[in-house]
Protein backbone atom coordinates (compact mmCIF):
# COMPACT_ATOMS: atom_id res chain seq x y z
CA UNK A 1 0.00 0.00 0.00
CA UNK A 2 2.63 2.43 1.09
CA UNK A 3 4.81 1.16 -1.72
CA UNK A 4 2.01 2.06 -4.05
CA UNK A 5 1.85 5.56 -2.66
CA UNK A 6 5.60 5.88 -3.07
CA UNK A 7 5.44 4.75 -6.68
CA UNK A 8 2.39 6.90 -7.29
CA UNK A 9 4.25 10.04 -6.28
CA UNK A 10 6.49 9.82 -9.32
CA UNK A 11 3.54 9.16 -11.58
CA UNK A 12 1.62 11.99 -9.97
CA UNK A 13 4.17 14.60 -10.93
CA UNK A 14 4.22 13.41 -14.51
CA UNK A 15 0.44 13.33 -14.48
CA UNK A 16 0.31 16.92 -13.24
CA UNK A 17 2.70 17.96 -15.97
CA UNK A 18 0.54 16.36 -18.63
CA UNK A 19 -2.62 17.87 -17.22
CA UNK A 20 -1.14 21.36 -17.23
CA UNK A 21 -0.60 21.12 -20.95
CA UNK A 22 -3.76 19.25 -21.80
CA UNK A 23 -5.92 21.70 -19.90
CA UNK A 24 -4.61 24.66 -21.79
CA UNK A 25 -4.10 23.34 -25.26
CA UNK A 26 -5.81 19.95 -25.46
CA UNK A 27 -2.56 18.36 -26.50
CA UNK A 28 -1.66 14.96 -25.15
CA UNK A 29 2.02 15.46 -24.69
CA UNK A 30 3.79 12.19 -25.27
CA UNK A 31 7.07 14.08 -25.20
CA UNK A 32 6.57 14.95 -21.54
CA UNK A 33 8.81 12.20 -20.28
CA UNK A 34 11.59 13.05 -22.65
CA UNK A 35 11.40 16.76 -21.89
CA UNK A 36 12.03 15.79 -18.29
CA UNK A 37 14.75 13.42 -19.44
CA UNK A 38 16.53 16.23 -21.23
CA UNK A 39 16.42 18.39 -18.11
CA UNK A 40 17.68 15.58 -15.93
CA UNK A 41 20.62 14.90 -18.18
CA UNK A 42 21.32 18.59 -18.42
CA UNK A 43 21.47 18.70 -14.64
CA UNK A 44 23.77 15.71 -14.67
CA UNK A 45 25.96 17.43 -17.20
CA UNK A 46 26.40 20.62 -15.24
CA UNK A 47 26.85 18.78 -11.97
CA UNK A 48 29.28 16.24 -13.28
CA UNK A 49 31.20 17.90 -16.07
CA UNK A 50 31.19 21.50 -15.02
CA UNK A 51 31.25 20.86 -11.32
CA UNK A 52 28.57 23.37 -10.49
CA UNK A 53 27.46 23.01 -6.87
CA UNK A 54 24.09 21.43 -6.28
CA UNK A 55 22.44 24.57 -4.94
CA UNK A 56 23.16 26.45 -8.13
CA UNK A 57 22.50 23.48 -10.36
CA UNK A 58 18.88 23.19 -9.28
CA UNK A 59 17.77 26.66 -10.36
CA UNK A 60 19.75 26.21 -13.56
CA UNK A 61 17.97 22.93 -14.19
CA UNK A 62 14.64 24.60 -13.59
CA UNK A 63 15.54 27.34 -16.01
CA UNK A 64 16.63 24.83 -18.58
CA UNK A 65 13.40 22.87 -18.18
CA UNK A 66 11.32 25.99 -18.69
CA UNK A 67 13.45 26.85 -21.67
CA UNK A 68 12.96 23.42 -23.25
CA UNK A 69 9.22 23.64 -22.80
CA UNK A 70 9.03 27.13 -24.24
CA UNK A 71 11.24 26.31 -27.20
CA UNK A 72 9.21 23.25 -28.12
CA UNK A 73 6.00 25.22 -27.92
CA UNK A 74 7.39 28.06 -29.94
CA UNK A 75 9.20 26.04 -32.56
CA UNK A 76 6.82 23.17 -33.10
CA UNK A 77 3.52 23.13 -31.30
CA UNK A 78 2.56 26.65 -32.25
CA UNK A 79 2.96 25.74 -35.88
CA UNK A 80 0.92 22.59 -35.50
CA UNK A 81 -2.00 24.13 -33.69
CA UNK A 82 -4.57 23.43 -36.35
CA UNK A 83 -3.92 19.71 -36.24
CA UNK A 84 -6.40 17.09 -35.17
CA UNK A 85 -5.97 15.21 -31.91
CA UNK A 86 -4.28 12.45 -33.83
CA UNK A 87 -1.98 14.89 -35.55
CA UNK A 88 -0.94 16.35 -32.22
CA UNK A 89 -0.25 12.90 -30.83
CA UNK A 90 1.96 12.18 -33.81
CA UNK A 91 3.80 15.47 -33.38
CA UNK A 92 4.48 14.89 -29.71
CA UNK A 93 5.54 11.30 -30.32
CA UNK A 94 7.89 12.63 -32.96
CA UNK A 95 9.31 15.14 -30.49
CA UNK A 96 9.66 12.38 -27.97
CA UNK A 97 11.76 10.35 -30.39
CA UNK A 98 13.92 13.35 -31.27
CA UNK A 99 14.63 14.23 -27.65
CA UNK A 100 15.25 10.63 -26.74
CA UNK A 101 17.61 10.29 -29.68
CA UNK A 102 19.52 13.44 -28.74
CA UNK A 103 19.94 12.41 -25.13
CA UNK A 104 21.06 8.90 -26.03
CA UNK A 105 23.39 10.25 -28.65
CA UNK A 106 25.00 12.56 -26.18
CA UNK A 107 25.17 10.28 -23.16
CA UNK A 108 25.12 6.74 -24.50
CA UNK A 109 23.13 3.94 -23.01
CA UNK A 110 25.02 3.37 -19.78
CA UNK A 111 23.48 4.15 -16.46
CA UNK A 112 24.59 7.29 -14.80
CA UNK A 113 24.76 8.29 -11.20
CA UNK A 114 23.17 11.55 -10.36
CA UNK A 115 25.02 13.27 -7.52
CA UNK A 116 21.97 13.91 -5.44
CA UNK A 117 22.07 14.86 -1.79
CA UNK A 118 19.05 12.81 -0.80
CA UNK A 119 19.68 9.11 -0.79
CA UNK A 120 17.15 6.47 -1.45
CA UNK A 121 18.75 4.12 1.07
CA UNK A 122 18.07 5.84 4.36
CA UNK A 123 14.68 5.12 5.64
CA UNK A 124 12.42 5.73 8.53
CA UNK A 125 10.18 3.19 10.19
CA UNK A 126 6.62 4.26 9.79
CA UNK A 127 4.00 2.08 11.40
CA UNK A 128 4.87 -1.20 9.77
CA UNK A 129 6.65 0.11 6.72
CA UNK A 130 9.96 1.58 5.84
CA UNK A 131 9.81 4.85 4.02
CA UNK A 132 12.96 6.10 2.41
CA UNK A 133 14.00 9.67 2.67
CA UNK A 134 13.66 9.97 -1.10
CA UNK A 135 10.14 8.62 -1.02
CA UNK A 136 9.23 10.95 1.79
CA UNK A 137 10.73 13.87 -0.09
CA UNK A 138 9.00 12.89 -3.32
CA UNK A 139 5.72 12.54 -1.54
CA UNK A 140 6.03 15.94 0.05
CA UNK A 141 7.16 17.45 -3.22
CA UNK A 142 3.99 16.19 -4.87
CA UNK A 143 1.94 17.98 -2.27
CA UNK A 144 4.15 21.02 -2.39
CA UNK A 145 3.82 21.19 -6.16
CA UNK A 146 0.09 20.74 -5.89
CA UNK A 147 -0.16 23.40 -3.25
CA UNK A 148 2.20 25.62 -5.18
CA UNK A 149 0.14 25.28 -8.31
CA UNK A 150 -3.00 25.90 -6.32
CA UNK A 151 -1.58 29.08 -4.86
CA UNK A 152 -0.19 30.06 -8.22
CA UNK A 153 -3.48 29.61 -9.98
CA UNK A 154 -5.52 31.04 -7.14
CA UNK A 155 -3.59 34.06 -6.05
CA UNK A 156 -1.24 35.26 -8.72
CA UNK A 157 -2.09 37.40 -11.66
CA UNK A 158 -0.30 35.11 -14.07
CA UNK A 159 -2.17 32.17 -12.64
CA UNK A 160 -5.44 33.97 -13.18
CA UNK A 161 -4.48 34.74 -16.74
CA UNK A 162 -3.54 31.14 -17.34
CA UNK A 163 -6.79 29.90 -15.90
CA UNK A 164 -8.69 32.32 -18.07
CA UNK A 165 -6.77 31.24 -21.16
CA UNK A 166 -7.47 27.62 -20.39
CA UNK A 167 -11.17 28.20 -20.13
CA UNK A 168 -11.71 30.33 -23.14
CA UNK A 169 -8.82 31.23 -25.31
CA UNK A 170 -10.60 33.68 -27.55
CA UNK A 171 -12.20 35.46 -24.63
CA UNK A 172 -8.77 35.81 -23.09
CA UNK A 173 -7.58 37.34 -26.31
CA UNK A 174 -10.44 39.79 -26.06
CA UNK A 175 -9.12 40.83 -22.68
CA UNK A 176 -5.86 41.69 -24.40
CA UNK A 177 -4.03 38.64 -23.11
CA UNK A 178 -1.16 37.54 -25.32
CA UNK A 179 -2.35 33.97 -25.41
CA UNK A 180 0.61 32.72 -27.39
CA UNK A 181 2.91 33.75 -24.62
CA UNK A 182 0.64 32.19 -22.05
CA UNK A 183 0.72 28.91 -23.95
CA UNK A 184 4.45 29.05 -24.20
CA UNK A 185 4.67 29.64 -20.50
CA UNK A 186 2.29 26.76 -19.89
CA UNK A 187 4.68 24.44 -21.66
CA UNK A 188 7.53 25.84 -19.66
CA UNK A 189 5.67 25.32 -16.40
CA UNK A 190 4.72 21.81 -17.35
CA UNK A 191 8.27 21.04 -18.36
CA UNK A 192 9.39 22.35 -14.99
CA UNK A 193 7.06 20.02 -13.11
CA UNK A 194 8.25 17.17 -15.31
CA UNK A 195 11.84 18.11 -14.54
CA UNK A 196 11.15 17.92 -10.83
CA UNK A 197 9.67 14.48 -11.34
CA UNK A 198 12.68 13.42 -13.36
CA UNK A 199 15.16 14.69 -10.78
CA UNK A 200 13.38 12.79 -8.05
CA UNK A 201 13.36 9.61 -10.12
CA UNK A 202 16.95 9.95 -11.25
CA UNK A 203 18.65 8.78 -8.02
CA UNK A 204 17.05 5.38 -8.40
CA UNK A 205 17.90 4.79 -12.00
CA UNK A 206 19.21 7.16 -14.58
CA UNK A 207 19.40 6.11 -18.20
CA UNK A 208 17.71 7.24 -21.41
CA UNK A 209 14.63 5.08 -20.87
CA UNK A 210 14.00 6.05 -17.29
CA UNK A 211 10.99 8.24 -18.07
CA UNK A 212 8.97 5.83 -20.18
CA UNK A 213 7.28 4.01 -17.39
CA UNK A 214 6.52 7.05 -15.19
CA UNK A 215 5.28 8.98 -18.20
CA UNK A 216 2.85 6.29 -19.32
CA UNK A 217 1.65 5.66 -15.79
CA UNK A 218 1.36 9.38 -15.15
CA UNK A 219 -0.64 9.76 -18.33
CA UNK A 220 -2.79 6.84 -17.31
CA UNK A 221 -3.31 8.44 -13.91
CA UNK A 222 -4.21 11.74 -15.51
CA UNK A 223 -6.73 10.00 -17.74
CA UNK A 224 -8.29 8.26 -14.77
CA UNK A 225 -8.50 11.64 -13.12
CA UNK A 226 -10.16 13.15 -16.15
CA UNK A 227 -7.20 14.80 -17.88
CA UNK A 228 -8.21 18.29 -16.83
CA UNK A 229 -7.94 18.28 -13.09
CA UNK A 230 -4.67 18.46 -11.22
CA UNK A 231 -5.96 16.88 -8.03
CA UNK A 232 -7.64 14.34 -10.28
CA UNK A 233 -4.33 13.47 -11.88
CA UNK A 234 -2.69 13.11 -8.48
CA UNK A 235 -5.51 10.93 -7.28
CA UNK A 236 -5.36 8.85 -10.45
CA UNK A 237 -1.62 8.40 -10.17
CA UNK A 238 -1.84 7.23 -6.58
CA UNK A 239 -4.74 5.02 -7.51
CA UNK A 240 -2.65 3.34 -10.19
CA UNK A 241 0.39 3.06 -7.96
CA UNK A 242 -1.61 1.47 -5.16
CA UNK A 243 -3.60 -0.85 -7.37
CA UNK A 244 -0.62 -2.24 -9.22
CA UNK A 245 1.25 -2.76 -5.99
CA UNK A 246 -1.60 -4.46 -4.24
CA UNK A 247 -2.11 -6.60 -7.29
CA UNK A 248 1.58 -7.41 -7.42
CA UNK A 249 1.59 -8.31 -3.78
CA UNK A 250 -1.54 -10.36 -3.49
CA UNK A 251 -2.22 -11.69 -6.95
CA UNK A 252 0.54 -11.87 -9.48
CA UNK A 253 3.77 -10.00 -9.71
CA UNK A 254 4.03 -10.71 -13.43
CA UNK A 255 0.98 -8.72 -14.37
CA UNK A 256 1.81 -5.87 -12.05
CA UNK A 257 2.37 -3.37 -14.84
CA UNK A 258 -0.31 -4.64 -17.13
CA UNK A 259 -3.02 -4.49 -14.52
CA UNK A 260 -2.80 -0.72 -14.35
CA UNK A 261 -3.68 -0.42 -18.02
CA UNK A 262 -6.31 -3.12 -17.92
CA UNK A 263 -7.85 -1.20 -15.07
CA UNK A 264 -7.88 2.00 -17.06
CA UNK A 265 -9.83 0.37 -19.84
CA UNK A 266 -12.40 -0.67 -17.27
CA UNK A 267 -12.52 2.73 -15.61
CA UNK A 268 -12.98 4.39 -18.97
CA UNK A 269 -15.77 2.01 -19.89
CA UNK A 270 -17.67 3.14 -16.84
CA UNK A 271 -16.69 6.80 -16.99
CA UNK A 272 -15.58 7.64 -20.51
CA UNK A 273 -13.92 10.87 -19.57
CA UNK A 274 -12.35 9.95 -16.29
CA UNK A 275 -13.53 10.12 -12.73
CA UNK A 276 -13.08 13.80 -12.09
CA UNK A 277 -14.41 15.41 -15.20
CA UNK A 278 -17.95 16.43 -15.82
CA UNK A 279 -19.55 15.14 -18.91
CA UNK A 280 -21.08 17.69 -21.18
CA UNK A 281 -23.32 17.45 -24.19
CA UNK A 282 -21.58 18.17 -27.43
CA UNK A 283 -23.33 20.87 -29.40
CA UNK A 284 -24.10 20.42 -33.04
Amino acid sequence: MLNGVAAGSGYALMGIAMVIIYKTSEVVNFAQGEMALASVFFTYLILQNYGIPFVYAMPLAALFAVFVGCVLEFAVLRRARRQTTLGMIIVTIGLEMILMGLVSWKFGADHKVMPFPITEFDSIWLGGFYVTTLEAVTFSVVWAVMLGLFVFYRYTRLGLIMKATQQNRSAAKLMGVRTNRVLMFTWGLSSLVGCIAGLLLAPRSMEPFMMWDPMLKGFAGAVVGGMTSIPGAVFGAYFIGVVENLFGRYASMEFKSAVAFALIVIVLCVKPSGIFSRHYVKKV
Partner: protein
Amino acid sequence: MNASLELKDVQTGYGLIQAVRGASFAVRRGSVTALLGNNGAGKSTLLKTVMGLIPGQPQKGEILLDGERINGMDTESIVRLGVSYVPENRAVFHQLSVQDNLIMGAHVRKDRRALKTDLERIYEFFPILADRVNQPAGTLSGGEQQMLAISRAMMSRPRLLLLDEPSLGLSPFLVRKIFHIIRIIRNQGVTILLVEQNVRKALAIADYALVMESGRLVSAGPSTDLKNDPRIKDFYLGLNIRETQEPSC
Protein backbone atom coordinates in the same frame (compact mmCIF):
# COMPACT_ATOMS: atom_id res chain seq x y z
CA MET B 1 -11.39 63.57 -37.96
CA ASN B 2 -14.46 62.79 -36.09
CA ALA B 3 -14.64 59.08 -36.67
CA SER B 4 -13.57 56.70 -33.96
CA LEU B 5 -13.82 53.68 -36.20
CA GLU B 6 -13.87 53.79 -39.91
CA LEU B 7 -14.33 50.96 -42.39
CA LYS B 8 -13.48 51.31 -46.02
CA ASP B 9 -14.88 48.69 -48.35
CA VAL B 10 -14.20 45.83 -45.96
CA GLN B 11 -14.74 42.34 -47.32
CA THR B 12 -14.60 39.21 -45.21
CA GLY B 13 -14.86 35.60 -46.14
CA TYR B 14 -15.56 32.95 -43.60
CA GLY B 15 -14.45 29.63 -44.88
CA LEU B 16 -16.56 29.41 -47.97
CA ILE B 17 -19.05 32.10 -47.14
CA GLN B 18 -18.50 35.58 -48.35
CA ALA B 19 -20.01 37.08 -45.24
CA VAL B 20 -19.22 40.76 -45.68
CA ARG B 21 -19.20 41.93 -49.24
CA GLY B 22 -17.96 45.42 -48.93
CA ALA B 23 -18.89 47.58 -45.98
CA SER B 24 -17.91 51.22 -45.64
CA PHE B 25 -19.03 53.37 -42.79
CA ALA B 26 -17.72 55.42 -39.92
CA VAL B 27 -18.62 55.38 -36.27
CA ARG B 28 -18.56 58.86 -34.84
CA ARG B 29 -16.72 59.50 -31.69
CA GLY B 30 -19.01 59.56 -28.67
CA SER B 31 -21.98 58.23 -30.52
CA VAL B 32 -23.98 55.03 -30.34
CA THR B 33 -24.22 53.40 -33.73
CA ALA B 34 -26.59 50.51 -34.20
CA LEU B 35 -25.87 47.86 -36.78
CA LEU B 36 -29.12 46.19 -37.75
CA GLY B 37 -29.99 43.37 -40.03
CA ASN B 38 -31.26 39.88 -40.35
CA ASN B 39 -29.61 36.78 -39.03
CA GLY B 40 -26.79 35.90 -41.33
CA ALA B 41 -26.58 39.40 -42.73
CA GLY B 42 -22.93 39.57 -41.68
CA LYS B 43 -23.15 41.89 -38.67
CA SER B 44 -21.35 39.66 -36.21
CA THR B 45 -18.77 38.78 -38.81
CA LEU B 46 -18.14 42.44 -39.30
CA LEU B 47 -17.48 42.97 -35.61
CA LYS B 48 -15.23 39.94 -35.51
CA THR B 49 -13.34 41.24 -38.48
CA VAL B 50 -12.77 44.54 -36.73
CA MET B 51 -11.46 42.65 -33.73
CA GLY B 52 -9.10 40.58 -35.84
CA LEU B 53 -10.75 37.40 -34.71
CA ILE B 54 -10.98 35.86 -38.14
CA PRO B 55 -7.56 34.78 -39.27
CA GLY B 56 -6.44 36.23 -42.54
CA GLN B 57 -9.36 38.61 -42.81
CA PRO B 58 -10.43 41.09 -44.05
CA GLN B 59 -9.50 40.11 -47.55
CA LYS B 60 -9.95 43.58 -48.77
CA GLY B 61 -10.47 47.07 -47.46
CA GLU B 62 -9.21 49.04 -44.55
CA ILE B 63 -10.19 49.32 -40.93
CA LEU B 64 -9.11 52.50 -39.23
CA LEU B 65 -9.20 53.19 -35.54
CA ASP B 66 -8.85 56.89 -34.92
CA GLY B 67 -7.28 57.13 -38.31
CA GLU B 68 -4.81 54.33 -37.79
CA ARG B 69 -4.96 51.17 -39.78
CA ILE B 70 -5.66 48.16 -37.61
CA ASN B 71 -6.44 45.44 -40.06
CA GLY B 72 -4.01 42.58 -39.90
CA MET B 73 -3.23 43.24 -36.27
CA ASP B 74 -3.88 40.47 -33.81
CA THR B 75 -6.78 40.67 -31.41
CA GLU B 76 -4.63 41.29 -28.37
CA SER B 77 -3.05 44.36 -29.90
CA ILE B 78 -6.37 45.76 -31.01
CA VAL B 79 -7.69 45.34 -27.49
CA ARG B 80 -4.62 47.09 -26.20
CA LEU B 81 -5.46 50.04 -28.44
CA GLY B 82 -8.62 50.56 -26.44
CA VAL B 83 -11.29 48.55 -28.18
CA SER B 84 -13.50 46.27 -26.13
CA TYR B 85 -15.78 43.68 -27.56
CA VAL B 86 -18.60 41.78 -25.93
CA PRO B 87 -19.30 38.77 -28.11
CA GLU B 88 -22.71 37.33 -28.71
CA ASN B 89 -22.10 34.35 -26.43
CA ARG B 90 -20.76 36.73 -23.75
CA ALA B 91 -17.66 34.54 -23.31
CA VAL B 92 -17.37 34.97 -19.58
CA PHE B 93 -14.85 32.71 -17.90
CA HIS B 94 -17.24 30.19 -16.45
CA GLN B 95 -15.04 28.76 -13.76
CA LEU B 96 -13.60 32.06 -12.64
CA SER B 97 -15.31 34.08 -9.99
CA VAL B 98 -17.11 37.26 -10.87
CA GLN B 99 -14.32 39.30 -9.40
CA ASP B 100 -11.64 37.41 -11.32
CA ASN B 101 -13.60 37.93 -14.50
CA LEU B 102 -13.59 41.65 -13.86
CA ILE B 103 -9.90 41.65 -13.02
CA MET B 104 -9.24 39.86 -16.29
CA GLY B 105 -11.13 42.65 -17.96
CA ALA B 106 -8.60 45.13 -16.68
CA HIS B 107 -5.72 43.03 -17.96
CA VAL B 108 -4.38 45.58 -20.39
CA ARG B 109 -4.40 48.40 -17.93
CA LYS B 110 -1.24 49.56 -16.28
CA ASP B 111 -2.68 51.51 -13.37
CA ARG B 112 -3.28 48.71 -10.93
CA ARG B 113 -4.28 51.10 -8.18
CA ALA B 114 -7.28 52.47 -9.95
CA LEU B 115 -8.49 48.95 -10.39
CA LYS B 116 -9.93 48.86 -6.96
CA THR B 117 -11.98 51.98 -7.39
CA ASP B 118 -13.22 50.74 -10.73
CA LEU B 119 -14.30 47.48 -9.19
CA GLU B 120 -16.15 49.36 -6.51
CA ARG B 121 -17.86 51.49 -9.11
CA ILE B 122 -19.00 48.43 -10.97
CA TYR B 123 -20.35 46.81 -7.83
CA GLU B 124 -22.12 49.98 -6.94
CA PHE B 125 -23.65 49.95 -10.33
CA PHE B 126 -24.58 46.29 -10.36
CA PRO B 127 -25.47 45.26 -6.87
CA ILE B 128 -26.27 41.82 -8.24
CA LEU B 129 -22.66 41.33 -9.21
CA ALA B 130 -21.53 42.66 -5.87
CA ASP B 131 -23.59 39.96 -4.20
CA ARG B 132 -21.85 37.29 -6.22
CA VAL B 133 -18.28 38.45 -6.14
CA ASN B 134 -16.87 35.04 -5.37
CA GLN B 135 -19.35 32.96 -7.27
CA PRO B 136 -18.14 31.23 -10.45
CA ALA B 137 -19.45 33.16 -13.41
CA GLY B 138 -20.86 30.00 -14.93
CA THR B 139 -23.48 29.87 -12.21
CA LEU B 140 -24.89 33.28 -13.04
CA SER B 141 -28.08 33.61 -15.01
CA GLY B 142 -28.02 34.74 -18.60
CA GLY B 143 -28.79 38.35 -17.75
CA GLU B 144 -26.22 38.46 -15.01
CA GLN B 145 -23.65 37.00 -17.34
CA GLN B 146 -24.44 39.70 -19.87
CA MET B 147 -24.03 42.37 -17.23
CA LEU B 148 -20.79 40.80 -16.18
CA ALA B 149 -19.57 40.67 -19.77
CA ILE B 150 -20.36 44.31 -20.34
CA SER B 151 -18.85 45.46 -17.10
CA ARG B 152 -15.80 43.33 -17.76
CA ALA B 153 -15.42 45.05 -21.08
CA MET B 154 -15.72 48.40 -19.29
CA MET B 155 -12.94 47.48 -16.88
CA SER B 156 -10.38 48.15 -19.56
CA ARG B 157 -11.76 51.69 -19.92
CA PRO B 158 -12.12 51.37 -23.67
CA ARG B 159 -12.58 54.23 -26.06
CA LEU B 160 -14.63 52.05 -28.36
CA LEU B 161 -17.05 49.36 -27.24
CA LEU B 162 -18.44 46.76 -29.61
CA LEU B 163 -21.56 45.00 -28.40
CA ASP B 164 -22.87 41.96 -30.21
CA GLU B 165 -26.55 41.34 -29.52
CA PRO B 166 -26.53 42.19 -25.84
CA SER B 167 -30.24 41.50 -25.51
CA LEU B 168 -30.07 38.02 -27.00
CA GLY B 169 -32.07 35.49 -25.06
CA LEU B 170 -32.92 37.85 -22.26
CA SER B 171 -36.32 38.49 -20.81
CA PRO B 172 -37.92 41.86 -21.55
CA PHE B 173 -37.14 43.11 -18.08
CA LEU B 174 -33.48 42.33 -18.47
CA VAL B 175 -33.40 43.73 -21.95
CA ARG B 176 -34.61 47.00 -20.59
CA LYS B 177 -31.96 46.91 -17.92
CA ILE B 178 -29.18 46.17 -20.40
CA PHE B 179 -30.20 49.06 -22.59
CA HIS B 180 -30.25 51.26 -19.56
CA ILE B 181 -26.67 50.29 -18.92
CA ILE B 182 -25.68 50.95 -22.50
CA ARG B 183 -27.10 54.40 -22.20
CA ILE B 184 -25.10 55.07 -19.09
CA ILE B 185 -21.96 53.91 -20.77
CA ARG B 186 -22.66 56.16 -23.67
CA ASN B 187 -23.08 59.04 -21.27
CA GLN B 188 -19.58 58.35 -19.97
CA GLY B 189 -18.31 59.26 -23.39
CA VAL B 190 -17.58 55.79 -24.75
CA THR B 191 -18.18 55.25 -28.42
CA ILE B 192 -20.44 52.28 -28.98
CA LEU B 193 -21.06 50.11 -32.00
CA LEU B 194 -24.08 47.97 -31.26
CA VAL B 195 -25.31 44.96 -33.18
CA GLU B 196 -28.88 44.27 -32.28
CA GLN B 197 -31.89 42.37 -33.39
CA ASN B 198 -34.22 44.19 -31.13
CA VAL B 199 -34.76 46.94 -33.65
CA ARG B 200 -36.96 49.23 -31.67
CA LYS B 201 -34.73 49.25 -28.65
CA ALA B 202 -31.68 49.70 -30.76
CA LEU B 203 -33.13 52.58 -32.70
CA ALA B 204 -34.33 54.17 -29.53
CA ILE B 205 -30.88 54.29 -28.07
CA ALA B 206 -28.74 54.82 -31.14
CA ASP B 207 -27.69 58.07 -32.71
CA TYR B 208 -26.97 56.45 -36.02
CA ALA B 209 -28.08 53.22 -37.54
CA LEU B 210 -26.81 51.00 -40.31
CA VAL B 211 -28.77 48.20 -41.92
CA MET B 212 -27.05 45.21 -43.42
CA GLU B 213 -28.44 42.63 -45.71
CA SER B 214 -26.55 39.72 -47.24
CA GLY B 215 -23.21 41.18 -46.35
CA ARG B 216 -23.90 44.66 -47.69
CA LEU B 217 -24.92 47.89 -46.11
CA VAL B 218 -28.33 48.72 -47.47
CA SER B 219 -29.16 51.86 -45.60
CA ALA B 220 -27.55 54.18 -43.12
CA GLY B 221 -28.44 57.35 -41.41
CA PRO B 222 -29.52 58.99 -38.17
CA SER B 223 -31.63 56.56 -36.25
CA THR B 224 -34.59 58.87 -36.16
CA ASP B 225 -34.78 58.65 -39.92
CA LEU B 226 -34.66 54.90 -39.92
CA LYS B 227 -37.15 54.66 -37.14
CA ASN B 228 -39.72 56.07 -39.41
CA ASP B 229 -38.69 54.04 -42.38
CA PRO B 230 -41.47 51.56 -43.06
CA ARG B 231 -39.17 49.32 -44.97
CA ILE B 232 -37.49 48.28 -41.75
CA LYS B 233 -40.52 46.54 -40.45
CA ASP B 234 -41.30 44.96 -43.78
CA PHE B 235 -37.84 43.70 -43.93
CA TYR B 236 -38.06 42.01 -40.59
CA LEU B 237 -41.50 40.54 -40.91
CA GLY B 238 -41.41 39.74 -44.56
CA LEU B 239 -44.36 42.01 -45.24
CA ASN B 240 -44.93 43.46 -48.58
CA ILE B 241 -45.04 47.21 -48.75
CA ARG B 242 -48.06 47.96 -46.74
CA GLU B 243 -49.31 50.57 -44.36
CA THR B 244 -47.67 50.01 -41.03
CA GLN B 245 -48.58 51.30 -37.71
CA GLU B 246 -46.04 53.56 -36.22
CA PRO B 247 -44.98 52.99 -32.67
CA SER B 248 -47.19 54.84 -30.32
CA CYS B 249 -44.70 57.50 -29.47
